[in-house]
Each structure stands twice: as C-alpha cells, then as structure tokens.
C-alpha cells in the first residue's frame, strides 16, 4: 500500500516536471523563431503555452510583440494590456504599449495629466499587487506586535512611545490597504476591452438604424458598460458613449 502511494507520488512529480520542461522547450523554440523573424511560428508557439492555462506577464508581452510584428495592432495592444494587468510594474510592456498606441488611428491615452496625478499613477503602477500584499501583511504584523507588547508590558503612563509608533503604522497600513483594494479591483475589473476590427461605428442605441455617434478604429481601448443581444454599450476614455457590435472587440481579461 505504502509503496504504491509512493510510486503514484513519484509519477505525479515526474509528469509535472515533464510538463514544465515541455513548455520550456516550446518557449525557447518560439524565441528562436522570433529571432529568425518568423513571427507567425513564434506566435503559434507562444499561444500554445498560453492555451496551457499559464497566466504570465512575460508570455503575454512576447505574444504582444509577435502581433505587433505581424501588424495586428489591436491584438498587440490587447496582449500588452494583459501583461500590465498581470504585472503592473512590467515596464517593457508599458513602453511597448505606448509605442503601439502611436500606430493606431485614434489618439488615446492623453499624456496631459497633472503632475500629482501622474506621480500617483506612477507610484501606483510601479507597485505590483503581490508586493503590496506582502507589505500590508508586514505592517499588519508590526502593528499587532506593538499592540501585544503594549498590552503585556506597559502600564498606562509608559505607553506614549509605542502608542505613537502604532498610530504611524496604522496610517501606513491604511494607505497600503486602500492601494491594495484599488489594485485588486483593477485586477479583477474586466470591463476594459480593445477593439480588434479595423473600425467600428458607435450608435446611439443597439442597432444600425440609430444615430451614428462616433467611429473608432483598431486598438482603441474602452470600457464595456452593458450588453444587449449582439450589442454592447461602451464608454470611451473621453466620455463618449455608444453601442457597438459585440464581435468587434475583446475584453482584457485573464
């Protein structure tokens, strides 16, 4: 009995190791294809790994690069966005996304933000969600320790110093906790979508007989507010809203 269990465990480990090495060989094959400028093959191989159910920023980034090379800007933007979604501190993906935006017909991501807002965004983006999770946990641990020490060791009058320290840490904790919540919300927000067809017309209602409101082109990023049959109500970055066909876009979700 014990032997069979051990054997089973061994097989399990072996198979998982094998799977890992297999994806790794596919990955390195894809990279050589990319280096030989065979972007189609590279894309096919990267997609193979993606279909394994692996969620990885670097992988998404590479797929985005492949799509960029074969001039599918919509998909390139989609994958760069995905990479950033997984790891918001992925600077390479951010740079490429910005560059890919210059190839789209519609101008987006207006950079004319205020200094404070851009500073906030920069800090916000440079912190990855897991890093935040660890920091929050560490601060929480420190606070709990401080409180415990105060409870056990200090009498009322002697508590001023630890009390002061605790307050500082509580503020820090709140700040990080709020950022974490925002980050987490952003991560799980799947309302954002990228237009993949070359152009789409936004109507005032779900149907082509409504008034035309706007025309957007491949690579445009917008939020989807609700669906109705084959139509979706979307909201553009500049506040414009309209109904477009559902099959023209893909949501940025993992």
């Amino acid at each position, binding site marked *: 009995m014990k032997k069979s269990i051990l054997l089973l465990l061994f097989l399990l480990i072996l198979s998982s190791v094998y799977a*890992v090495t297999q*994806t*790794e060989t596919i*990955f390195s094959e894809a*990279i050589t294809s*990319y280096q030989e400028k065979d972007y189609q093959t590279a894309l096919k191989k990267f997609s193979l*790994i993606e279909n394994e*159910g*692996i*969620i*990885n*920023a*670097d*992988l998404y*980034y*590479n797929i985005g*690069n*492949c799509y*960029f090379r074969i001039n599918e800007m919509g998909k390139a933007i989609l994958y760069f966005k995905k990479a950033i979604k*997984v*790891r918001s501190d992925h600077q*390479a993906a951010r*740079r*490429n996304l910005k*560059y*890919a935006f210059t190839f789209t017909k519609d101008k987006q991501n207006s950079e004319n933000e205020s200094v404070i807002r851009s500073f906030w965004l920069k800090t916000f983006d440079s912190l990855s*969600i*897991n890093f935040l*999770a*660890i920091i929050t*946990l560490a601060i*929480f*641990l420190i606070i*709990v*320790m401080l*409180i*415990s*020490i105060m*409870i*056990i060791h200090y009498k009322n009058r002697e508590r001023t110093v630890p009390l002061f320290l605790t307050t500082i840490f509580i503020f820090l904790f709140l700040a990080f906790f709020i950022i*974490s919540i925002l980050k*987490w919300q952003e*991560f799980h927000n799947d309302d954002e979508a990228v237009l993949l067809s070359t152009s789409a017309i936004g109507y005032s209602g779900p149907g082509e007989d409504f008034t035309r409101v706007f025309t957007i082109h491949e690579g445009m990023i917008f939020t989807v507010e609700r669906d109705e049959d084959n139509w979706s109500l979307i909201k553009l970055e500049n506040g414009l809203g309209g109904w477009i066909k559902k099959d023209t876009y893909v949501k940025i979700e993992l």
Partner: protein
Amino acid sequence: MKKIIFILSLLLTSQLLLSQEIEVESYVDKTKIGISDRVKYTIEITGEKVGHISTPKFPKIKNFRNLGSSSSSSSNYSIVQGKMTSKITKSFTYTLRPLKIGNFLIPPITIKIKNKSFTTEPIHIKVSEGTTQATPPTSSSFAKQPNSTSNLSDNLFLIAKVNKNNVYEEEPITVEYKLYSRYDISNLAFAGDTNFEGFWKEDIYKPESISFDRETYNGIMYNVMLMQSVALFPTKSGKLKIPSLSLNVDIRTQSHSFFDFGTTKRYNIKNKPTTVKVKPIPQNNKPTSYSNAVGKFKISSNISQTQLNVGDSFTYTITISGTGNLKQFDIPKLKEVNNLRFLDPEITTDINKNKISGKKTIKYLIIAQEKGNFTLSAVPFIFFDTSSGKYKTIQTKPYQLKIGEGDLTFVANSAAQSIVSMEGSDIGFIITAGELKTKNIYYDKFFYWFIWIIILLFIPLSILYSKEKTKLEGNVDYIRQKQANKILKKYMKEASTLAAHDDPDFYAAAQLGLSSYLADKLKEPRGSSTDNIISSISLKNIPKELIDKIKKLFETCDQARFMPGGFSKERIEADFQLVKGTINEITKCKF
C-alpha cells in the same frame, strides 16, 4: 549685401574711368523711314578726357547724304569716397537724307582718339516710299508719346533672352526679361505671376526700383531695364514653352500747353513666347551609380593629414564644382574602411549669383581606430556631361594613411563626439528568459488570509496573558512564592562567600536564607521560628529523610550561632556542601 555690391560696382566703374576707358557707340533715331524723312545718326563718345575731341569726319555713305552735324556734350560727376570722377559724354549728330528706296546699311565708322581706333556697329535702315511719320519728331528722340499702335510696338517692347535653346533635362538655362522703351515711363508693375511650368526655377535677379540703362538694339538707342532674370532647370523633356512676362507700363504723355501737365496712360505689354527644346537624358548605358548630376563638373579632394595616431581625427573634403543642377544631385558614396570611423558628412552648397554654377563641399570627419596602413580609395562621381551628351566619370585621388599607435586609452576627440540621437524607434525585444509560472495573486489565496488570522490571534492571546498576570499580581502568597527563590539565592550567595572565607557567620546566613525560603513557600509569616516551619513542612507531602535533614541543619546552625569559633575549617566546608545538597533537594520538592 545688395548695398555692398552696389558700392563695389560703383568703385569698379570709377576705377574703369580712371583708367581712361573710352567708349564709342553709334545709333540712329529710327530704322524705318520714308524717302522724304531724315535720319539722325549719332556717335557717342564717353570718357574722362574727351571734351576737346573735334567732330569726327563723317565718311561718305552710299545712298545717304550728310545734311550737316551738330555736337553736344554732357558731364557727369560723381564723388566716391572723397575722390571725384567726371565722365563726359560727347555726342555728334549727323542728319542724313536717304537718296533711294530700299534696304541700306550705314557701315561701321572708324574713329581715332588718342592713337586708338574705335569702330562703330553697322546699322540697317529700311527706306520706304512716302513718310512714316505724320509729324516730324520733336526736339529730342526720347520721351516721345505713343500715337499709334504700330509705333508703340516699335518703341516699347519686352524681350526674353534665353542663353540656350537646346538643352538636356536638368541642364540649367538662364532667361533675362528686358524692357526696351523710348518713352517716358512713370511707373512699372508686374501684371500677375509667371508660372514656369515644367521647370525648377531659381531667381537670379528682380529689380527693386525703376532704373534704366541706355542700350542700342538694332541700331536704335533705348532705355533698357532688366525686369527679371531666372535660372530654369527643365524637369521634363520635350518642347517646353518659356512663359512670357506681363508688365503694366504707365507712360507719361507730353504736355501740349503750359496748363497741361500731361497725363499717364497704362499699357500692358508681353514678350513673344519662346520655346526651348529639352532632350531627355539617355537611359541606355546609364551607370548604376549615376549621381543625377547634369552639367559640367570638376571634382577635387583634400585631406587634413595622412600620418596620425589611433584616436586622432582628420577631415576629408570632397569638392564638386561646376555648372549644372548642383542642388539636386546625390553626393558620391564613400567606400567605408574598417577601423576608420566616418562621421556623418557636413554638406555645404555654394551657388554663385547666376544660380547655375557653384560648388558643393562634402566634409567628412574621420576617426582612426586602429593602427596600420590604410588606403582611402578614390571616390568616383558620375555625371551627365551636357556638352558631349555622354555620362562622364571623374574621381578624386586615393590617399595613403599611416596610423600609428596612439594613446592606448581611446579618447574620442571632443569635436568628433556627438550626442546620441534617436535614429528610429521600435518596440522592445521579447523577454527570452522568463519564468513560465502562473503568477498567484496573494490576495486571492486562502493561505494569505490565514496568516492574517494567525497574526490577529496575537491580540486576544496577549490580552488573556496580561489578564492572568494582573490576577496573580493581586495575590500576596503568589508573589511570596515567586519571590522565595530570589531570597534564597540572595542568602545562599552571601553564605557561599562567607564559607569560602571560613567565616562562622556562614551558619547564620544559611539558616536565615533557608528559613525565609521555606516560610515563603509554606505561606507562613516571615520570621516564624524553625519549629513552626518544621511542623508545617511535615504536613506537606515531603519525604521524611529530607525533613530530618532540614531539622538537623537548623540544629547545627543553632549550635554554631552559640559557639562561635568552635568549628574547624573542614567542618564549615562539609556543612556548606550539606546546605547546598539540602537546598537542591528542597527546590525539587513540590509544596
């Protein structure tokens, strides 16, 4: 700039006059006359010291009779930079009467001035029947008033002078538009823009103010003004039309009476259009590295040094000069030499005032990067030679470079350095070494929150702990029990030091320590007698031997206290060991 040129030209003319330049010119007042008309033939001598010249003898001319002569002179003084120059114009006018009908020639006349001969230009005169002029010309031959259209075209016209009529594509031609007039012109204006279709145009000259020169044209003296001068580069082949210039000319009419101040009349004149034949550049056997240059060029090169050290830089200059489309052609390509770094060349194009000739200078800065002997090969330049109608290759001469070992630390000459500029942008390269693991989001994991709960548990635990502590702290016996060990330790320390010195006070210390310890442990009041302690200790679950031992110890101590000095060194030592052993046993017991 224009001003400087103006002053320079003035200086030049004055210089010419100083050198006693004499000009002789001849003209008539009209070339088409009737048999009953008269022709005024004028010889004009201009120079510095011509005032004393007497009327030249007029030779006999066939078919004309000399009716007499008159002379006049005018002086023109000018002061340039404090120097005064005078220019005297002496004109001799002969009145000639035609004798026959037909086309005649006034032959060139030779005039000798100061042992120098001057010959005038021959003039054609057409004599027809009757008279061409209703009224005889008024006093002067200029400032006439146009009275008929036929007359107008003779006395006011625009001519386009083209320097070449048969050119190749891209071969420049120059066109001069000149206004000839014998009227008193009060104002001039261009009537609309001229569109040079099929040409690349470069302006050479455009007048800024109205100013006339005197010039004879077909034997008649006119007031002449250069209206426009352009260089044209044909951009296609075929028969290309050179567009005509259109001018609005205001002519002042002569006053007839004292109260008539004269009126101005506007005339629109255009020159006759001309065409230029443009041949295409032959496409067959066109060299591959043809530079698109058309014209006639020369090439020269220059190098700043041929012996240098690693890290040094030198300049290599190629100059292409000549006539043609200097602005349009491609610069010759340099054959790159390994170990020499060529920086981007500095190209300057200097075009002469005539817009069709000039030079192009290509200046390379080259940095030597390795020692050795290198050859800077000859640079070929292929252009289409318009005079021969063939492609022509000219080249620079090759240079031998000797590069010696310089400072081993390669320091780029600061003049050769340049700020790195962006040459292009692209997406970043793919990530080749990535961990292919699905990244977990800690916030979504149970384990992460489990740690939070565990940490949070510290608070109730510490509260419980502190509560327990305060509860115990309120209990006196608990404190005494806790403190018992401390007291025992204190006394035993004292006792051990005393024992080491064989001091009999050791017994007192040992007894006090032991009794207080036991009292605390047994919750007896402090300072209870040894008997009390013994009796209460026997109630506890403590082995009988130990109780006997304690009893014995107390007795020994009592004895020692009343018999100071009665104990030997060995005895004290043995008793100390006994006390230690007993205490060890006691602390192990549970009370």
